[in-house]
């Protein structure tokens, strides 16, 4: 069947529209981890210590949702405000291994394309090459925070002790829906991961990728690109603004969350310690604190670290200026480059959202951010568009029935949801159930562990003190002890 949309069209979806194309996404499992690359995390309220969950799904979800531009761009339902319409466009139904179940929405006739490069000879899945002028810009060391999305090829066996699938699958990409990933909220420690770093993307073909940069590259190789329809100048601007954020804003954010004494002790450390499982919660936050401190020292030099006032005045001033610049650049637009989000939006959002939502005791930067109304609205709108579950909604895990469209997980939900959050209300009641549900796998595991430890202790003591012994064929040394003891007991009795 001929492909109705020319692949070279700049707004065409990145994946071929042939109805029988079988896109088999790699099994992308992303395991969050509170480590270096993503220092910023935030719970939606103080009681939801999900540091591991949140920055990642936010960024990833935003990024991945924007990765494939839908065929009918003129009215992109992605970007309308209500989650209901979001679901209506991007139904949670079809799982990647059932591609034919869902009839594709009819692609609209494309507007006349600009002078295109020669189109590929035939329409095959994943054969679309991006137009030469819009090479994706992947900035050097920008932690694009893609994480936490896992497709639901549901035959992948997910050990429930480690993973908790958080959200529904996305439709298969031929519908121009979001990338087929599902966020997996991991509250396990990073240790089981091969590289010990989060975010990590586990792919079918290439193992686990743990650097955000590489994750983005991988996704781009899979033809998911949020920057596909940016002009060259806009791509250049993306690179520039990413550098601005990384140089001016990120170190100060790290400082606010991790180095500033009050914030660290009262908020960040407690937050991480509550979520990271035993025994890592004793030393992992401290290790991260030290690592961030060292990093800042290297970046800023020693005289800043020692002179608090100077640091405050100058560096925070620059960070505030950076926020103001972002606000000016955003203006009254919905996203940085018009009406459709790009990777810059994902990055800016990932930096700003934790700052906006976290309850920091020492929050000067936060106050400045809150005074910039358009940035606040921007964050809230992205949050509501792409992270509806994180707003406090609980989704119930419909256990083994994998054909169900809406898979979710009982999150440990906030009992106190911040006022600014758009998705409050009804889900709140279910929140408490969710909280218990979340605890269950861990509770059982903890119980089991404690029982085992107790048993082991008792047995060990019994063996060591000779109360119990293993009788061997001959008279072994172990045999003598109980005999001796028995003799002693007999003597005592006597």
């Amino acid at each position, binding site marked *: 069947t001929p492909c109705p949309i020319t692949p070279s069209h700049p707004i065409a979806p990145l994946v071929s529209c042939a109805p029988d194309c079988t896109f088999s996404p790699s099994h992308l499992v992303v395991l969050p981890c509170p480590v270096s690359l993503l220092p910023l995390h935030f719970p939606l309220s103080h009681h939801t210590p999900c540091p591991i969950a949140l920055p990642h799904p936010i960024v990833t979800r935003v990024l991945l949702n924007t990765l494939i531009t839908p065929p009918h761009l003129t009215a992109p339902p992605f970007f309308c405000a209500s989650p209901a319409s979001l679901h209506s466009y991007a139904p949670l139904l079809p799982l990647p291994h059932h591609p034919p179940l869902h009839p594709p929405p009819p692609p609209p006739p494309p507007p006349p394309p600009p002078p295109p490069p020669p189109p590929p000879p035939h329409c095959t899945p994943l054969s679309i090459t991006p137009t030469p002028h819009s090479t994706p810009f992947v900035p*050097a*060391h920008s932690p694009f925070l893609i994480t936490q999305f896992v497709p639901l090829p549901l035959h992948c066996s997910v050990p429930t002790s480690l993973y908790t699938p958080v959200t529904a699958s996305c439709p298969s990409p031929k519908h121009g829906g979001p990338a087929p990933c599902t966020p997996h909220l991991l509250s396990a420690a990073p240790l089981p991961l091969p590289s010990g770093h989060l975010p990590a993307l586990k792919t079918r073909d290439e193992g686990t990728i743990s650097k955000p940069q590489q994750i983005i590259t991988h996704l781009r190789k899979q033809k998911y690109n949020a920057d596909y329809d940016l002009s060259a100048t806009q791509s*250049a601007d993306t*690179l520039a603004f990413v550098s*601005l954020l990384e140089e001016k804003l990120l170190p100060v954010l790290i400082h606010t969350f991790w180095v500033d004494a009050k914030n660290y002790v009262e908020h960040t450390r407690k937050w991480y310690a509550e979520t990271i499982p035993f025994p890592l919660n004793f030393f992992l936050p401290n290790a991260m604190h030290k690592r961030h401190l060292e990093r800042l020292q290297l970046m800023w030099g020693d005289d800043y670290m020692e002179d608090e006032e100077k640091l405050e005045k100058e560096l925070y001033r620059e960070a505030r200026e950076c926020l103001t*610049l972002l606000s000016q650049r955003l203006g009254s637009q919905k996203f940085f480059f018009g009406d459709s989000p790009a990777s810059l939006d994902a990055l800016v959002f990932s930096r700003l959202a934790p700052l906006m939502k976290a309850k920091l005791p020492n929050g000067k930067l936060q106050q400045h951010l809150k005074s910039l109304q358009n940035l606040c609205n921007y964050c809230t709108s992205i949050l509501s568009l792409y992270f509806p579950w994180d707003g406090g909604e609980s989704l119930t895990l419909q256990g083994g029935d994998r054909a169900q469209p809406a898979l979710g997980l009982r999150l440990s939900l906030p009992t106190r949801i911040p006022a600014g959050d758009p998705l409050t209300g009804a889900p709140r009641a279910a929140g408490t159930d969710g909280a218990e549900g979340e605890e269950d796998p861990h509770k059982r595991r903890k119980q089991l562990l404690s029982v085992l430890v107790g048993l082991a202790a008792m047995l060990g003591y019994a063996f060591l003190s000779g109360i119990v012994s293993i009788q061997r064929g001959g008279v072994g040394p172990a045999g003598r002890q109980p005999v001796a003891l028995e003799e002693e007991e007999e003597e005592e009795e006597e």
Partner: protein
Amino acid sequence: MNLGFLCSTAEPWPENAALYQQLKEEQILLSDNASSLAVQAFLQMCNLPVRVICRANAEYMSPSGKVPFIHVGNQVVSELGPIVQFVKAKGHSLSDGLDEVQKAEMKAYMELVNNMLLTAELYLQWCDDVTVEEITYPRYGSPYPWPLNRILSYQKQWEVRRKMKAIGWAGKTLEQVLEDVDQCCHALSQRLGTQPYFFNKQPTELDALVFGHLFTILTTQLITDELSEKVKNYSNLTAFCRRIEQQYFEGHEKDSSTTAAHSSKRSLLR
């Protein structure tokens, strides 16, 4: 960074303002030369006279440890950012005519250059073993006797490598670094387009910074020409460098023997 200058805004720009950098012929390295040239270009664009003084210990004299720094009146200010603010406090500014969005973009692009080009230059001269052995070690410690020159070089290299690790560049290969330089140049080239300067028809500090880095890269001979090749791919950037050189440095070069300056720049890191 030095904010003390804010109190001395009343004084006009003195005649004997001086810019300090390392010794041009023997000591200065790629990244320092780029920064110094950027500041010189900026001051030229503002029409502020400044003498360039080369000292072997310029790095240690500088308040922040970075070259170049300027000595104006009784103020010492180092690095382009603070110098721009200082000059602005004195009443000269290149970016006043820009609107808010353009100012944001200008700052973003300046950070891009700092983030990518400067870091790539630092990487090349301190983390690439061949370049380090053949160029950096001999140059960096050249004013000092053995063993001090070696010790200082090792110390600086260790510092730079730690910083690279902190920002995540330690694991990069040279090809990746060159790739980043290419992307950065691509972005700059896109932004410049066919305009004479980055914003309108007037140069700004962004132009000075880009000129400083690109000119240095283009005119410096390293072990291989890969870095300058990356920049040469973009003809509007080379034309931009040439234009600024002709406009702001021609007169300057006539004072200090032109050909010598040119050839010294060309054989800068030999």
